[in-house]
């Protein structure tokens, strides 16, 4: 069937500072994280409201991880469809989480590119760090689109948050401006 894009937007952008270092070898293992479609999001939202509102009789009566799993775990149809799809490409090295709604797999790049039409795995380097990402959009087979929210490990680069370091002198200037009630 047609392949559908779980993440059609935004445009794939390589953040500044990351230098392309060529396509990885077909046998290079990439780690893919499949976010499987959950159940019970509506019920979960009601529960969060009930246990978080001090005026609610259920305030503070939290769930265990196992109770959250019982609420959100993917349907048998989703688990079967995804596992069959992966096994069809010989993907075996996977691990799940307690809530069963994520699957982490180590996959040779060439297999990953067949699994996710359109994806191409390239290495990018920045200083000491290197990542493997796809500059092209990926898609999943139409029959899988209702079972997968997104696939991690293809587009998002590591975070770039930096603390701001300010020279003390500049602070002086700012405090004068503050006193003048002007925004910097």
């Amino acid at each position: 069937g047609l392949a559908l894009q779980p993440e059609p937007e935004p445009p794939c952008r390589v953040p500044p500072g990351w230098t392309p270092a060529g396509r990885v070898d077909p046998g290079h293992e990439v780690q893919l994280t499949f976010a499987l479609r959950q159940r019970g999001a509506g019920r979960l939202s009601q529960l969060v409201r009930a246990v978080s509102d001090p005026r609610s009789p259920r305030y503070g009566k939290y769930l265990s991880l196992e109770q959250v799993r019982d609420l959100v775990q993917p349907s048998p149809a989703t688990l079967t469809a995804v596992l069959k799809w992966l096994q069809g490409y010989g993907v075996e090295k996977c691990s799940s989480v307690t809530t069963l709604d994520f699957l982490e797999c180590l996959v040779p790049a060439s297999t990953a590119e067949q699994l996710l039409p359109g994806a191409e795995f390239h290495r990018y380097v920045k200083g000491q760090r290197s990542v493997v990402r796809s500059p092209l959009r990926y898609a999943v087979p139409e029959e899988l689109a209702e079972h997968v929210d997104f696939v991690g490990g293809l587009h998002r680069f590591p975070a770039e948050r930096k603390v701001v370091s300010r020279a003390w002198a500049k602070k002086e200037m700012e405090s004068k401006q503050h006193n003048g009630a002007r925004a910097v």
Partner: protein
Amino acid sequence: FHLGVTPSVIRKRYNMTGGDVGLLPNNSQACAQFLEQYFHQADVAEFMQLFGSSFAHRSQVDRVIGRQGKGKAGLEASLDVEYIMSTGANISTWVFSNAGRHESQEPFLAWLLLLSNMSSLPWVHSVSYGDDEDSLSLAYMERVNVEFMKAAARGLTILFASGDDGAGCRRMPGGNHTFRPSFPASSPYVTTVGGTSFKNPFLVTAEVTDYISGGGFSNVFPMPDYQAAAVKRFLRSASKLPPSSYYNSSGRAYPDLSALSDNYWVVTNRIPLPWVSGTSASTPVVGGMVALINDRRLQRGLAPLGFLNPALYQLQEQGHDAALYDVTQGCHLSCLDGTVQGQGFCAGPAWDPVTGWGTPNFPRLLRALLPP
């Protein structure tokens, strides 16, 4: 008088006494940043030796989840750990470290999978991480939002830094500018922390906005009920608002509260460094205080605070105005154009999109969140 923010300056400003330290062995708190940085236990020990003499504290992180290599310590990782252990003093502290990840792993996603795989976790998580909403897919943000709902249902308090770009700025295809909200700060199921500065940088006095404090309105998530009245009051009463074309006034508004984010002292690689600023400083400060309030609640056999926002936004109507210092002076950055001239929103009475409800007045906040 002081020459920059240290734990005792923080504890003085927020009225924390020597007795405001953790007492319960089974309470815990955690911090995470996804810059693949290391922190060093020796830095924490040195920091506490230099700055921790006025309060009972631990000098070591109790647990590291993930890999801690031998590389140089990073400034953010050191900052996170040192300040959550200063306000959440003497509380068991975990660090989620993703240094040395697999090349195609997404550190933030790896942390979410850990939350879904560990039945025993700290009740409070301070997280310094954010991306522009417009750089992420809708499917990804909506799913991550459900992950925060899962955490809230379990009673975990997740605090995110609001970001250091003020309201942010984005040039639209037609050439117009709009503000640029940040995610996960804009998730309705996390508590987002903004930043303030001292009005006089050398004295422990009133706070004004820190002009880098991230804040605004989500373009993805609608405004949750718990904040509708407070935000509408702000939009109705603000003396000066940016043109409405710059932001989505029906979106989830943030931050929810703030703390000092300017001119911190940090010890990293054994060197004390001044002038470190950012909401990645204010977030662990609030995280430690929430953990301390949990400590007092757990001692009374009460549940931990969990998802904080509904309780936070009810404080004022319950007469607990003094639980937070209301910051009403100053603005934050935004687009450098002829229309807004670099200025985003400005602080105002009660809730505002620069400092939220303001900064914690610990004893009054504790009283408000610890029923008699």
